[in-house]
């Protein structure tokens, strides 16, 4: 079993290892809550921390996928699109509308050559 070292060297890409190991981990998480632990309560402090995982990680994913390029930071057309997405999402627009707004604004900014 190789997780980190098998793809060392060249440019990283999607691997079957990633797909299958993540499948196992994801199902283990789901089944442990519903079937194995099921019914028993977790300590309140653990519960509170787990509840904050989406907020902390997903906001980091917003930043990472907006300005991240490898190990560096680049502000390009994506940033304009994401600002548009934030404005639309703040109006409680459905998921699909937020995604389309972000992509469309990015495409337009790029097409008119305002930013790469």
């Amino acid at each position, binding site marked *: 079993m190789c997780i980190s070292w098998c793809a060392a060297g060249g440019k990283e890409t999607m691997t079957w290892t990633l*797909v299958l190991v*993540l499948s196992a981990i994801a199902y283990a998480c789901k089944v442990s809550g519903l079937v194995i632990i099921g019914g028993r309560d977790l300590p309140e402090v653990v519960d509170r921390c787990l509840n904050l*995982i989406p907020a902390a990680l997903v906001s980091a994913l917003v930043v990472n996928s907006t300005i991240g390029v*490898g190990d560096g930071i680049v502000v390009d057309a994506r940033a304009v699109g994401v600002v548009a997405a934030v404005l639309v999402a703040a109006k409680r627009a459905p998921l699909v509308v937020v995604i389309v707004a972000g992509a469309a604004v990015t495409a337009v900014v790029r097409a008119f050559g305002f930013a790469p």
Partner: protein
Amino acid sequence: MSAIDATEGSDDRSLAASCAVLGAAVGVFGITFGVGSVAAGGSVAMTCVMSLLVFTGASQFSAVSVVASGGSTAAALAGASLLAARNGVYGLAMSRTLRGSLLKRILAAQITIDESTAMSTAQEEPQAARVAFWWTGLSVYVFWNAGTLIGALAGNAIDPEKFGLDAAFPAGFVAMVMPHLRHRSGRRAAGIGALVCAVTIPFTPAGVPILCASVGVLLGVKKP
């Protein structure tokens, strides 16, 4: 995700219909995933198997976006696993509603996700909660996987950047984080996560900033 509209006091049939509509909306997100996964170097088969087996949108997007930004498989797995961990919490929440045979619960586990849990916990009657869970979970499963296939096939045929699809990921994450910003602790955790990520990007390998951002959850140690 933000497209959740809890229908109170409606009968089972209209409840099931609104669950199915939610699933269809998620299907569009599945198309985005398919396109992004292929753009990150995944094959169509890899992309579809990931949606069929992993079946947790945020984890899948996280894994693919870490790989797309040059991160290692280990970094992609670590961030995606942290996001998958919350399904365990959903399972705990749903275990009171979903009683029944072991086989049924083993199947239910695969569709214990954001949408099915949110839809189910929004119902007052136990029967409605079960209907909402199964209808939402199964319709999201069908539409998410159909969307992934369409996106993966289309992703091979189009230039994602021309249509701004590289911004579809962060835009989707924006929509997904919004419901968590309604509470003060969620806003603070999100702020810390975003800040830590931005600061650590230049100094750490791709994918690691996402893990560093998880320090934001330690806010939960203190009582609100």
